């Protein structure tokens, strides 16, 4: 199988206020097309691990490989490019830019990548919105739509550059049951239909159970 993401012997410490180990010698890998959930109790280090895997947090020991390439720790510009091109993010809070409308929010990472022309990026963004069934919101201001809709816009934004992997940090944590199910269905559809690799951090057991693979963490270690 094709390893999209691989972590080798990752250790991470928090230094403030006292030095504690949050992640202990952790190794695992995710293959292409996997729909993986990362679960565990609050404070077990799952979010911390996700940020290490996302390249945003570089204060760790060990090796991180994305698409077979080792991630450097002190090349901020390179990591930004990796995030732009190969990783899509969905956060618990929707983090849309209120200065832009929905379509522009989705387009931003695409424009940054500059692989396609502006018109093409716009066309692709509309397609992603269609997949998620929110193409009618395209021209609305991003602070004028509901929470569930915002999360779907965030997923569309994560998809715009056809990333190798989508990472979610409690993407349903702030949504009601109906919207949670909707978001899960979208993830499921992406995994089944588009063979999209997904790594979702969640503490919602019903969400985790329905994914293809569950990584369970406790006290900085993987227990199953």
């Amino acid at each position, binding site marked *: 199988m094709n390893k999209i993401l691989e972590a080798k012997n990752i250790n991470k410490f928090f230094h403030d206020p006292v030095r504690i180990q949050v992640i202990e010698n952790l190794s695992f890998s995710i293959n292409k097309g996997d729909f993986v959930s990362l679960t565990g109790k609050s404070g077990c280090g799952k*979010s911390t691990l996700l*940020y290490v895997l*996302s390249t*945003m*947090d570089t204060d760790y020991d060990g090796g991180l490989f994305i698409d077979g390439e080792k991630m450097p720790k002190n090349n*901020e*510009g390179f990591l*930004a*490019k*990796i*995030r*732009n*091109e190969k990783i899509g*993010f969905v*956060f*618990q*809070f929707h*983090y*849309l*830019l*209120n*200065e*832009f409308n929905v379509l522009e929010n989705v387009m*931003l*990472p695409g*424009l*940054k*990548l*500059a692989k396609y022309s502006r018109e093409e990026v716009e066309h692709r963004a509309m397609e992603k919105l269609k997949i998620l069934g929110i193409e009618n919101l395209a021209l609305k201001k991003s602070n004028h739509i509901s929470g569930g809709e915002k999360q779907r816009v965030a997923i569309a*934004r994560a998809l715009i*550059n056809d990333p190798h992997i989508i990472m979610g*940090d409690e993407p349903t944590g702030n949504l009601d049951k109906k919207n949670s199910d909707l978001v899960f269905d979208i993830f499921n559809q992406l995994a089944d239909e588009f063979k999209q690799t997904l790594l979702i951090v969640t503490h919602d057991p019903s969400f985790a159970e329905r994914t293809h693979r569950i990584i369970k963490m406790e006290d900085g270690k993987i227990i199953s």
Partner: protein
Amino acid sequence: MRKRLLLNIAKSLLLARWRQTLVAAVGVTFSITMFVTLLSFMSGLNDLLDGLILNRTPHVRIYNDIKPNADQPINNSTDFNKAHNFIGSVKSDGNRQAIYNSEAIMKSILKDPRVIGLSPKITAQVFFNDGNVDITGSIFGVNPTEESKLFHFDEYVTTGNSADLTKVNNSIILGKGLADKLLVQIGDAIQITTSKGDRIQLKVVGTFQSGIKDFDNVQSYASINTVQKILAVPNDYITSIQVKLKDILQAPAVAKEYERLYQTDAEDIQTANSQFETGSSIRTLISYSVGVTLLIVAGFGIYNILNMMIFEKMDSIAILKATGFSGRDVKNIFIYIAISIGIFGGLMGLFFGFSLSALIDQIPFNTASLPTIKTYPINYNPKFYVIGIVFSFITTYFAGWFPARKASKIDPVVIIRGK
């Protein structure tokens, strides 16, 4: 493409808080307006004050100074030519103030490509007789056409016509103060006594106001021929030649050269009027410091507003970084914001600065000593506008640079986890 995207983001962030942006831009506008106005006005005043003296002063004046002869007889003796000779009680040799061979010298100077023109001049010390009172004064013998062309003579002749000096025989133009003391008007005759005791009648054809009252109280102008007649000297008697150069900065060098070439004394304008140079440069310095201070204050305003904006936009910055914008991109976005505020505010400032200068230029300013000045003087030198816009650019760049750097250092993990 990439730059355009960052500019677009900067524009959206700016327009989202347009009121704040406007306040920042108004700060810059205000300071640039004041900077341009202040410098235009100050430099207008400087030019005016300098003009009072400098426009009327020759760049190089050739004359014979009253001083001891450098070639004393003992130096010619072969017995002592190897020794240093100390000579006591040397007297100045001032019996000939006229310039030797003045006609030839003038012809040769006019051929010099560095020279705009020259005007010969004679000075006569006389007494103006007013009943039983004698007023000491002097008459300058000038060529009114040349004098007007080179040294703005006719601008100061407030009544009468400077050309009449050559048209009317034995005519004189009196200083305003002198005419008031003598109680004479155009057409009246006055009597003068020369230093040799001769009495001569002259006809008043005008009065002048130089802007310096002490001059106007004792001085007067006549044609060269008239003064030569007063002094009872021949037609080639000239006591000084006033030269105007194309480049005033060459004056010291030209003066030295003429001194050597024509075996006379020559004085340059810089040596003769060094105090004016000092005055203007200090006034300019003060205006620049006030202007720059205004700009720096505006810079702090921009700094504050950008800092606030970054605080408000923490989430946006975090998401931009998470989706692949690097720290440098974020920094550029905020620098673009600062610079657009600077350029927009600066251009408005130039416009308002020009308007305010033009307004001041219309305010009446009448003073007895400056007959040619009717409104406040303004110097519309484009230099001030260029300096203004460049400075607004630089200050806003630096005002934006520090907050932008802060924004580029924001750790997205801290913001995203912090919620």
